[in-house]
């Protein structure tokens, strides 16, 4: 993933993102961390055909259907230094029937658009593109978290020797002071 990301890259990452993570990020905007209030403009579930463009054939071939949930939010926006007051939008498109993730994604999408809309960065996690995009992939997160189960006794031993040495030196210092 190349950062800074454009909106299409952000939407791709969020569509693949972990539902729980995206939900919590969206919830944090509702509670005021990077606040934008969203109205649902569109929320729908449906089957779409998946076509693959095969250059050798010169036409697209339908290989199947998938279920999608799409959400478009209309967000309050009082204007900024660069934009007059108007409504703004957030977008969510997710695999399967998941209104919760689609709505959450559109809130996060909207919050991440602060720069293009001339809003201030308030330090809210959801406004931080690198933070959100680098940590929303649950395959990566799960793998890295669960690797803690693997043995680490070599680096633990190194840390153990260091702590023993520091404690021994601290002990000598304490005794010298008494």
């Amino acid at each position, binding site marked *: 993933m190349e*950062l800074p990301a454009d909106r299409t890259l952000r939407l791709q990452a969020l569509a693949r993102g972990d539902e729980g993570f995206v939900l919590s990020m969206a919830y944090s905007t509702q509670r005021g961390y990077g606040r934008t209030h969203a109205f649902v403009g569109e929320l729908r579930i449906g089957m779409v055909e998946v076509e693959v463009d095969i250059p050798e054939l010169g036409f697209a071939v339908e290989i199947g259907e998938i279920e999608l949930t799409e959400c478009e939010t209309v967000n309050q926006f009082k204007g900024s230094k660069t934009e007059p007051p108007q409504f703004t939008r957030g977008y969510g498109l997710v695999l399967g029937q998941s209104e919760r993730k689609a709505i959450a994604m559109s809130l996060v999408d909207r919050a991440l658009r602060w720069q293009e809309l001339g809003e201030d960065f308030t330090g809210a996690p959801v406004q931080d593109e*690198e933070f959100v995009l680098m940590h929303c992939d649950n395959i990566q997160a799960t793998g890295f978290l*669960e*690797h803690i189960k*693997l*043995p680490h006794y*070599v680096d633990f031993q190194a840390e153990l*020797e260091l702590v023993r040495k*520091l404690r021994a030196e601290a002990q000598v210092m304490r005794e010298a002071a008494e």
Partner: protein
Amino acid sequence: MSDLGSRPCADAYNFAYLDEQTKRRIRRAILKGIAVPGYQVPFASREMPMPYGWGTGGVQVTAACLVPEDRLKVIDQGADDTTNAVSIRRFFQRTAGVATTEATVIQTRHRIPETPLTDGQILVYQVPIPEPLRFLEPRETETRKMHELEEYGLMHVKLYEDIARHGQIATSYAYPVKVEGRYVMDPSPIPKFDNPKLSGNPAIQLFGAGREQRIYALPPWTETVSLDFDDHPFRTSKAPHDCDLCGAPNSYLDEVITDDASGRMFVCSDTDFCTGRRAGGHIGRLGEAA
């Protein structure tokens, strides 16, 4: 290290699992890494049939390096018989049919073997976090700039603060090195005991980080310097014992609790090295004659 011999790989897999186009892309990244020692080359990391964080980067680098004549060794924590090493070795036996002794390619997690490597060998490291500055600056966008500008002041401040607070540099593994006077590099979480072996090594050293999508390299005979200060020079560290099985005085040791009354033994973390010494008649405090 057991000699399982060369086995035919299952026909369903391309040699070493990855398709040839992917291997080419990884080889390009490796070549770029070798051309710019210590520089982290972004690459299009593939999803592997194992979790991120379990060696997906190392596995992809190994897959891109392997040829059918290779003999592959896989170690984790220095040992041939740890779960991650066994799984990865089996994976390549199944998908590449490569024998695993007298290695030409060694994939490792957290150690450099005790036995000096030789010209013609490739050592592949599994890397969890390739960025040495990550714990000082979490943003990749910032750390890439810092490398570009050779702006390593933050790292030296961190090392200085360690000395001010603890009287010494309080980093015991993944100890950062400077490569040929240019890039600061994370050697992966090897104990700092292994750091001197990074420098001037006749083998090719390749580092693969799958989740973070980075490859970097040390070509043979590259000079690396463990960061330090003139008045606080870098020192290696290990448990102050000999190996209880083979008596080796200079190998890196694991501490093993043997009972619930503070009984413990210290044994070589490099199982192959320890076994070889015992076979050669060396016996430690708790060892038995072979």
